[in-house]
């Protein structure tokens, strides 16, 4: 985790985000996330329900994975810098999966007047088999050296 912010000038297009590796997904984390988020869909809690629904067993809330992806950005570039973040949920995350969040800089826009400079990122999260479970993008604002 970084506390100091990066300056806009310090990030180059194609720069890689330091990967964020999360601990293996456990049922208790899905239960905590249900309580914290208010998403009590039993498909994330009740294996029999998830099997009956044809999903082969419980799987993690997509929003938990998106939380990991957002964390990977704020760990790198600072809390409060994310202006926009969007993701597509590409594959299910199962119990025991180890999720790694990765990203890279795709574009930069210089500061304009009182507006901070912006940086665009490509983001993705993969499981321990290297399969992408989330793909996404973010735009962050960063202060300038001026």
């Amino acid at each position, binding site marked *: *985790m970084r506390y100091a912010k990066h300056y806009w000038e310090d990030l180059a297009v194609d720069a890689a985000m330091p990967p964020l590796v*999360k*601990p293996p997904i456990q049922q208790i*984390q899905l239960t*905590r*996330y249900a*309580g*914290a*988020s*208010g*998403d009590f*869909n*039993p*498909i994330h809690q009740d294996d029999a*329900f998830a099997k*009956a*629904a*044809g999903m082969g067993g419980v799987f993690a*809330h*997509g*929003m*938990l994975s*998106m*939380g*990991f992806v*957002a*964390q990977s*950005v*704020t*760990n790198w570039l600072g*809390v*409060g810098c*994310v*202006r*926009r*973040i*969007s*993701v*597509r*949920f590409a594959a299910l995350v199962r119990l025991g999966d180890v999720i790694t969040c990765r990203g890279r800089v795709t574009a930069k826009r210089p500061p304009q007047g009182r507006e901070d400079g912006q940086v665009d990122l490509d983001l993705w999260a993969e499981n321990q088999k290297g399969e992408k479970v989330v793909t996404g993008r973010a735009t962050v604002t960063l202060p300038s050296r001026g």
Partner: protein
Amino acid sequence: MAITVNKDVKGKEYPPFAVTVERGKIKEFARAIGDCSPFYLDDAVGRASEWGDIIAPPTFAITFRDENADTGAVLKDLGVDISRILHGEQEFESYKPIRPGETYLCRSRITDVYEKTGRSGPMAFVVREMAVTDADNEIVSMVRHITVVRL
């Protein structure tokens, strides 16, 4: 057995609802993700920060729910059981940090409903947008959400 969704809900606006952000809820949410940044968890760090208090993580607005406007209400309108849905896509645009103690107004509507056949069969996509504004009627967040229904 194949099901259908009620496409007439396209354009439907749900009743606005107000949410007051509880300090403990921000911390509970950050901990559930395993994101233990002191800017979310430590009141003293928050007070000393540029925001003067802790702020919420980027995806926190997902907790802004109301039984008359949430996924459950949408499913009822679609005529779909919860066991058939998946989360397709999600987006947050953030204009101001979300702070403890603030009361926000949330307005949600269905912007699109369309069907497509993917690798795993026919699916309906339900696109929702929620605007979050503060007491000054300034936009705080735009939340966009695509729910996938397995038909």
